[in-house]
């Protein structure tokens, strides 16, 4: 896949959750241009076209949406969000926070940092599937990205 035509960037260290997410998106044909990265460091490299993505990616082709887990080893979701939203070139990329945590300070902090959505992954699968499906529909099909 051309790394410049990525539509969905999924950053998730929990492989089970990642598989479930991808599967649900695939069900509705929304994984054509999906990239799954397993930690925050890779995600930053991808978005800013640095590190292992230097040369293969162009920063001016942002993904349509980034699905970001908060709790990750090394660079966590909060830091990734902060860096993306602090950079003029990348701050308009929609970032959807996916997390198990319902804890209030996290939600507040994510919105403070400029998160576009905050989705708590419910334990029940139907809820989870529905959340992922709605999120995919909204950000990939309904939402109009800036030109």
């Amino acid at each position, binding site marked *: 896949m051309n790394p410049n035509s990525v539509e969905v960037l999924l950053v998730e260290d929990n492989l*089970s959750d990642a598989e*479930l997410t991808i599967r649900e998106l695939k069900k509705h044909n929304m994984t054509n241009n999906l990239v799954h990265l397993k930690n925050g460091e890779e995600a930053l490299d991808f978005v800013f076209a640095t590190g292992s993505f230097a040369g293969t990616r162009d920063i001016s082709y942002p993904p349509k949406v980034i699905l970001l887990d908060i709790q990750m080893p090394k660079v966590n979701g909060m830091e990734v969000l902060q860096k993306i939203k602090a950079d003029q070139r990348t701050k308009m990329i929609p970032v959807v926070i996916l997390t*198990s945590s319902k*804890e209030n300070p996290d939600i507040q902090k994510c919105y403070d940092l400029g998160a576009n959505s905050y989705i708590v992954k419910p*334990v029940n*699968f139907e809820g*989870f599937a529905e959340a992922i499906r709605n999120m995919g529909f909204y950000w990939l099909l309904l939402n109009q990205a800036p030109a």
Partner: protein
Amino acid sequence: MRKSLLFYIVSFVLLMGVLIFFNRAFRQLSVYSEYTNRHHTVYNNYQELSDLVNNAAILTPDLVKKDSAPGIRRIFYADTESIIRQLNLLKGSVRDSVNVAIAGQLDLLVRSELSWLLASSVPDSIIQNKATGHIASFRKIDSLITQGMDRTNFLVQYRKQQVDTEIRKVRTGMVVFIVLSGVLLLYAILNLFNQQLKGRRQEKEIEVVLNRIHEGVVSVDKEWRYTFLNDAAMANHPGNKKEVIGKVIWDIHPEMKGTIFWDKYHEAMITRQMMEIDSYYEPMDIWFSVKVYPSADGLTIFYKNVTESKRAEQKLRQTLREVTDYKFALDESSIVAITDQKGFIKHANKNFCRISRYTLDKLVGQDHRIINSGHHPKEFIKDIWTTIANGRIWKGELKNKAKDGTIYWVDTTIVPFLNEEGKPCQYVAISSDITERKLAEENLQKSLKELADYKYALDESSIVAITDQEGIIRHVNDNFCRISRYRREELIGQDHRIINSGYHPGDFIHDLWVTITKGKIWKGELKNKAKGGAIYWVDTTIVPLLNEKGKPYQYLAIGADITEGKHAEDGLASSEMRFRALIENSSEGISLTDRYSNNIYRSPAAQKMMGELPKGNTLGLTHPADMEVIRSKYELVLKSPGMPVGFQGRFLHASGQYVWLEGTLTNLLHVKEVNALVTNFRNITERKEAEEKLIKSEEIYKTIASSIPGSVICLLDPNFRFLLIEGDMLEKIGYSKKQLLGNKIQDVVPPEIFAVTRKNFEKALRGETVTVEATRQGVDLISRYIPLKDKNGVVYAIMTVAIDISELKQAQRHVIELNHNLEEKIQQRTEELKKSNRELEAFSYSVSHDLRAPLRGIIGFTTILEEDYCSKLDDDAKRITSVIKTNTMKMGYLIDDLLAFSRTGKQELMKTTVDTDSMVNEIINDTNQPGIHWDIHELLPVNADINLLRQVWVNLVSNAVKYSRNNKQSRIEIGSCVNDGFINFYVRDNGVGFDTQYSGKLFKVFQRLHAPEEFEGTGVGLALVEKIVSRHGGKVWAEGRENEGACFYFSLPA
């Protein structure tokens, strides 16, 4: 699991197959054996037949012979009969077509060839013919028999072969069976072993998790033997795990017997109920928080060492108690008031109320000026406010007015309390009542003023001089200077003899000195010499001033100029007329009496002094108290003619009152012209009274000065010599009256102290009033140096007043120290609390995040299994996947509920006024349950945390819905009422209710009264309700009966 099931099924089918195969083979075998047997019989029959036929054939030639004996024939016949019988036997035994045919042929042959033989009437000749012809027939029969035997033999062989095949088959089947069952057995064993292994691995995993947590975890079986201990638990157990496991808990911890832990563990073991213990464990000196869960065959005990937090709590409680004690002490000992930053009284203690005579409710909310006496100038008040408004402490004395107008003085310390911005938010005034001291001070001032007035009057009217006991002049007044014509400097420090005229005889001077050195007052006329030699007469009274031993240390001479009168006396001395005139006009009373003191003559002045008295005994007029002295003087006079004897005493006036008279009595009986005792005297009543008054007032001042508790009052002359010392503090600060009085301060006080106090004395000497605080011998003193000035403003003495303020100081220091310590402790506690809150938050975060993810995985993948492998799962498998999902969901709810439960304890309450009515209606709409009859009464608004209160309502309403859903018509009633300062809310339903004896368990976490199959739930909901309500300071309770509905109540402070 399924794989092994499949294997078992396949194995079973195979085994069954083998068994069927066996069965068939056996059946076949028996059939074949039977056939074989039957063929054997046939063969034997053939054989028998063949033998019989051969016998017949052998006999035939004999039979043919002519001379054949009838015996042979008989034998032959018998033989033939046997052959026919045998043949019938054969015919009966054969089955196969070939043998049947052979047997038929045989039968035919035998019957045709032999039947005739049997006819008894056949003649021998015929027999001979026939027999010869039928030897061939016998051969034919024999060959047929041989044919039949061959056939049968073949059949036997064939069947034998078949039997062999079957036997081989059975043998092979046997081997397959044995091998198959062997494999099956092995697999079963292996599977069993594998499962055990798996179980053990799971145990291992649980063990790793349990070892990681900080709580101690211990499991025991029914016999109290340890089955498990985690790493944390080893801290409280000796040796290593292997040594402990298997031992009885009471052997390891024998000291536990008799403690609450022993009781509760046993209770848990018997009742199979979860127990919580939060108690001090003396043998280890540790506070434990313990949870005991009944497990499969014993107990699992989770425990935590909570000693530190318990100790901290106790310490804090103690500190608070101390602070309360201090506050109590302060309240008891001092007058305390608290005002807000604007000066409105927020609080006043008992003492304050008592002294101000207001009741507390009259004071609170009032401006502090309610007790303003108006005594202090505006600047003074302004100074107080600027000091305390800037956050500094103000100290001073205030004059206040009580409710009834009484004035009282308080020594006050006002301490401003600052808010976080450093601005004062309230003021605490601590005072002690010093009204008495203040009044004493005022009185003292007044008396000092009076004394000064007397002195002024004396100075103005008289000639005054003071000498010390050596006769050195220490003080002279202006009149003295004027009459003596010396300047003051020329007199001070000189011997009094500087004005001695040398006129008076030595005896007279001696007498004077004897009188005054004895401490008695001397009166008399003195002829003195002024500067330049001029003579002047002074009527003088010398008053010795006595020290505490009664010895004179100074002499005060008060005189009046009588020079002119003396000159006149000299001029008239020669003439009696002149004498008479002199006597008649003298202001001194003169009287003459005979030796028996009967009156002879009284001058007009005397009559004026004594009143119109009848002639008679004058001695009898003496006051009884003075009688003895006067009588002795009288006797002395009688004994020593010509010598004037001075007297002083009270005598009866004609008006009936006593007057003080002073004078001399001279025995002039020996002078012919007089022949009488001559008395000249003056009325000194006024002076005496003044003196007495002076002594009295001095006594009063001394008494006042000495009776002010905790004080020392001194009077010093400008040379810093102690003139007067009073007060009970003197000895406390290391001095004695004896040591100081009459001495100069620099001679008796340690130089280092004099160095400090000197400047204060010098300031006072310059006319300033100085107030200082100092510490002497550990006693805190407030000292005031007051200059005493004469009318010209010259300082003639310094008064020092020192008051013990140790107690006040100590109280102040204590309060300051206490405040300081308290703040420090509070800060420390706050830090600790914050830290533990942070840790708890981090813990619940990781619980909510990390425990959820695997659950989601389980449900997600189970759902995939259901969706994508639907066709491959049978009904049971589908049921099992749904069970997995239900259980996982349940665990999810449990985590959510537990989190909510634990969070409730630490969340800060954000109280607002909550519109309960609309909140409950919203919740009812959200339940979205049709067919329920809702009966909602008025719900009062309440002050509470809106989110927590919503949780309470959601839990209670959803419970009511849940437990009444089996009713045909659910009926739920919700209402509120006010009761004794609380608002009570209730939710009543007509559902399954509960058994009242378990109502105590309703609000405990994880306690349920219904099975999960009946009504789902985690057992946290009501516990959460209880926790939230009690955090609001309210209560929860419930009423209900089984199958008759339940009513849950909670109350919140109105």
